[in-house]
C-alpha cells in the first residue's frame, strides 16, 4: 500500500484501533486534515481550544483505559496543548499527541507558527519524537503508542514537520505489529524474593493499612486489590487518584487519605505498623509533613516505576512491577501460607479505627437554609445511583465530590490530581461521554474552574455529548478563599469575582439547558429533572453556601495526626460571621 505521510499518520491510528482524535486544524497540519477528510474510520472531534482537546482525550483515556489521541497545529496550537499534556503526565495517563511542525528546511529559522515543541514538552512527556524521515513515520507512531501505554503510562508527543506529510510524496506503508526499543523494557512481574518478604511482613502486622492509588486503576487491578484486601481483612484507604479502585461503600474502606482525607484514614496511617502502598506515590498532598509521616510503620511499596520508590519516603520492601501480577503472586503465597493474619490484633485495630470513625469527620450542617455543597454531591450520588462518571475541575468542589460521592468502580472518578488543572472537567466529561454515550456523565465544577474551558460547551453540542454540569457556585475561588481564611487572616486577595456571568443564559446561548438552584429543597428535583433530559447538556448553576470550607484538613506542614476538624458541625458559617 503506497501512502503519503499524512495518510500514514491516519492509517496508523486506524491500525491502533483509535476511535476518536481530538483536535484543531491549522497551517502545519492541513495535509493531515485533508487525509482525515478522506476517511471515516477515525472520527475527529473539533474542540474550541487545544487545551480542551488534550483534556477531552485525557478524559476518554481515563474512562476507557485506551490511549487518548490529540492533533494540534504548530506554534500556538502546540503550546495551548501543553497544559493538558502536563496534566496527563502528572497522572500517568496514556496519550499520543500529534503536533504539526513547520517544514523541516525552515525549522530553527523562527518561521511563522514555529515553536520547539519537542523542547517545550520534554519535561512533561514520557517521551517525544521529531519525525525527520517519512520512512520512519509508521515506526515512530507505533513506538509512540507502545511507550504511552506500557510501563507507567504517560503522554507521548510526535512532532511532524509539514513536509513529512506532503501528499505528493508516497512510500510503501506497513504498520509494524510490534516494536522493540532496546533501552525501554519496563518491569512487569516483580521480584519473587521481595514479594515473599512482603507477604511475611504483612502476616506479622498488628496495625496494618493498605494504601492504594491511581496505579491500581491504571493497572486494571481493582479485582485483585479487592480480593487481596478481603483475604487479609485489613483496612484500606485510597488516594484521590485511586478512588473507585476499591469499593468505597465497603466496610473495610476507611476513606480517602491525605490533606482532605478522613480522620480515620489519616489516624490509621499515623498509628500503623505495616503499610502496603500499592500503585501510589507518596505525593505531598498524601503525606503531609514528611518527618511525621507514618512514624511507626514498615512500608511495602509496589510500583511499576522504580523512581517512585523511596523518592520521598524510604520504604522497607520495594517491589518494582505491575500491580496486577504482583498482587496475584501475593494472593498465591497468602493462600499457601499456614500463617494467617492475627485475628486478635486485627480486632483490636478495627476497634481503634471505629473510635476514630465515631468522630464523624465528614458531618456538616444539614439544617442550613443555604445549599451545602456536600448535600448537592450526596443528592447527585443518589440520583445517579452511584453509577455516573464524575469528572471534576480543581478546588473545593473537587474535594467535596471526592469525599461525598462514594465510587464503587474504577475509572468513574476523573479528575486532575497531580497537576491540579482548572478547566479539566468539562472537556474531560465530553471525552468520557463520547466513549460511553449510554452512561450518565456529570462534571462537578465551580464558578472559577468552569470559566477556564467553558468554550467546550459548543463542542458538546456539535458532537451530541450531553453532559450534566453541576456548578457549585459560591462566587469565590473557594479553595483559595479557604486558605486565605486559615492562613492569611481572611484577607481575600483576588479570590472573589464580582462579575460572574449568568450561567443559565450562557448555557442557553450555547444551545443547552440552564437551571439556577437557590434553595436546598430545589436541589433534588432539579437534579432529577436534569438527568431525565437524556439528550441535553444541562448546566445546573447551584448557588451554595459561600463560606463553606472543606473539612477535615491537614494544613500545610502538619502531620496526619494533626488534622483540623470542623469546630462543631455546621459552624463554619457562624465562625465566618463572628
Amino acid at each position, binding site marked *: 500500500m503506497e501512502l503519503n505521510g499524512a495518510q500514514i499518520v491516519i492509517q496508523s491510528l486506524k491500525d491502533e484501533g483509535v476511535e476518536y482524535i481530538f483536535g484543531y486544524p491549522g497551517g502545519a497540519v492541513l495535509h493531515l486534515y485533508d487525509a482525515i477528510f478522506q476517511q471515516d474510520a477515525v472520527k475527529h472531534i473539533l474542540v474550541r481550544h487545544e487545551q480542551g482537546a488534550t483534556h477531552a482525550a485525557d478524559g476518554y483515556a481515563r474512562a476507557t483505559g485506551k490511549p487518548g489521541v490529540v492533533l494540534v497545529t504548530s506554534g500556538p496550537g502546540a503550546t495551548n496543548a501543553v497544559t493538558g499534556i502536563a496534566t496527563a503526565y502528572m497522572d500517568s495517563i496514556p496519550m499520543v499527541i500529534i503536533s504539526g511542525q513547520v517544514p523541516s528546511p525552515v525549522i530553527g529559522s523562527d518561521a511563522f507558527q514555529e515553536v520547539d515543541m*519537542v523542547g517545550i514538552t*520534554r*519535561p512533561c512527556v514520557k*517521551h517525544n519524537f521529531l519525525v525527520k524521515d517519512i520512512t520512519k513515520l509508521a515506526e515512530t507512531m507505533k513506538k509512540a503508542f507502545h511507550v504511552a501505554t506500557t510501563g507507567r503510562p504517560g503522554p507521548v508527543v510526535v512532532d511532524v514537520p509539514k513536509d513529512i506529510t506532503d501528499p505528493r510524496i508516497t512510500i510503501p506503508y506497513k504498520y509494524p505489529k510490534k516494536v522493540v526499543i532496546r533501552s525501554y523494557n519496563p518491569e512487569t512481574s516483580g521480584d519473587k524474593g521481595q514479594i515473599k518478604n512482603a507477604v511475611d511482613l504483612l502476616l506479622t502486622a498488628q496495625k496494618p493499612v493498605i494504601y492504594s492509588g491511581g496505579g491500581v486503576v491504571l493497572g486494571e487491578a481493582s479485582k485483585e486489590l479487592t480480593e487481596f484486601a478481603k483475604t487479609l481483612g485489613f483496612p484500606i484507604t485510597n488516594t484521590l487518584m485511586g478512588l473507585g479502585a476499591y469499593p468505597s461503600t465497603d466496610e473495610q474502606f476507611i476513606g480517602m487519605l491525605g490533606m482532605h482525607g478522613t480522620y480515620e484514614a489519616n489516624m490509621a496511617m499515623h498509628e500503623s505498623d505495616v503499610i502496603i502502598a500499592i500503585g501510589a506515590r507518596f505525593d505531598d498532598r498524601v503525606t503531609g509533613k514528611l518527618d511525621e509521616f507514618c512514624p511507626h510503620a514498615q512500608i511495602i511499596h509496589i510500583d511499576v516505576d522504580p*523512581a517512585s520508590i523511596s523518592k520521598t519516603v524510604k520504604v522497607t520492601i520495594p517491589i518494582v512491577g505491575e500491580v496486577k501480577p504482583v498482587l496475584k503472586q501475593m494472593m498465591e503465597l497468602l493462600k499457601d501460607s499456614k500463617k494467617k493474619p492475627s485475628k486478635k490484633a486485627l480486632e483490636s485495630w478495627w476497634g481503634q479505627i471505629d473510635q476514630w470513625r465515631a468522630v464523624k469527620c465528614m458531618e456538616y450542617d444539614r439544617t442550613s437554609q443555604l445549599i451545602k455543597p456536600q448535600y448537592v454531591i450526596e443528592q447527585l450520588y443518589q440520583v445517579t445511583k452511584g453509577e455516573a462518571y464524575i469528572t471534576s475541575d480543581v478546588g473545593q468542589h473537587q474535594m467535596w465530590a471526592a469525599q461525598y460521592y462514594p465510587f464503587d468502580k474504577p475509572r468513574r472518578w476523573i479528575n486532575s490530581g497531580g497537576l491540579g488543572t482548572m478547566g479539566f472537567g468539562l472537556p474531560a466529561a465530553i471525552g468520557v461521554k463520547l466513549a460511553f454515550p449510554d452512561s450518565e456523565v456529570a462534571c462537578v465544577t465551580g464558578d472559577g474552574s468552569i470559566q477556564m474551558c467553558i468554550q467546550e460547551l459548543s463542542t458538546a453540542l456539535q458532537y451530541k455529548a450531553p453532559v450534566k454540569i453541576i456548578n457549585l457556585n459560591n462566587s469565590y475561588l473557594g479553595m483559595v478563599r479557604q486558605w486565605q481564611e486559615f492562613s492569611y487572616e481572611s484577607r481575600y486577595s483576588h479570590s472573589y469575582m464580582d462579575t460572574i456571568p449568568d450561567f443559565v443564559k450562557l448555557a442557553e446561548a450555547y444551545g443547552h439547558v440552564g437551571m439556577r438552584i437557590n434553595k436546598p429543597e430545589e436541589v433534588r428535583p432539579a437534579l432529577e429533572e436534569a438527568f431525565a433530559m437524556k439528550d441535553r447538556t444541562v448546566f445546573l448553576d447551584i448557588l451554595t453556601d459561600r463560606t463553606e470550607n472543606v473539612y477535615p484538613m491537614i494544613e500545610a506542614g502538619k502531620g496526619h495526626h494533626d488534622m483540623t476538624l470542623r469546630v462543631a458541625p455546621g459552624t463554619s458559617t457562624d465562625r465566618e460571621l463572628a
Partner: protein
Amino acid sequence: MKHIISILIENESGALSRVAGLFSARGYNIESLTVAPTEDPSLSRMTLVTRGSEDIIEQITKQLNKLIDVVKLIDLADAVHIERELMMVKIKTTEQSREEIRSLASIFRGKIIDVTTTTYVVEMTGPSSKLDAFIASVDGGSIIEVVRSGPTGISRGEQGLHL
C-alpha cells in the same frame, strides 16, 4: 560525595538535552559532563560527575534510567575504576620562568604542545586531583587560560558498560 555516572545513550538529537534537562528540572547538580560517540555509532557515551547524598544519587540514577533514550548506566564510584581528565593550560612565560615550568610539567607528566616567545601550552591528563595539584603549583598570575574536559572513567577488570 562525588559520583561519576557513565551512561550509554542513543546517539540521537536531543538526547543530551534530555539528560541536561532532567538535572535542571529536578534540581540536581552537574559538575561536569562529557559526551562522545562510541565504537557503535548508534550509541553515545556520557560521563557525568555529580554530587549528592546516597538518596539523591539513587534518584538520579533511577530518573536517568527512566529516560527512554538511556540504554544503560553505571555509577563508577560503586567499584574500582580509573578516572582521567584532559587539561590544557596556557601559561605566560618569561626568560626566568621557562625552565621551572618545563620541569614542573615534566614532574606531572605533562607535555608542552605549543610554544611562543611569551607562552607555553601544557597538556596534561590524569585524575582531576592531579590536574588541580598542577594548577596549584603554577604561579596563578601567569595562567592565561585553563581548559578542562571534565573527567571520564572506566571500570577496572573484565566488567564493562556495554550492550
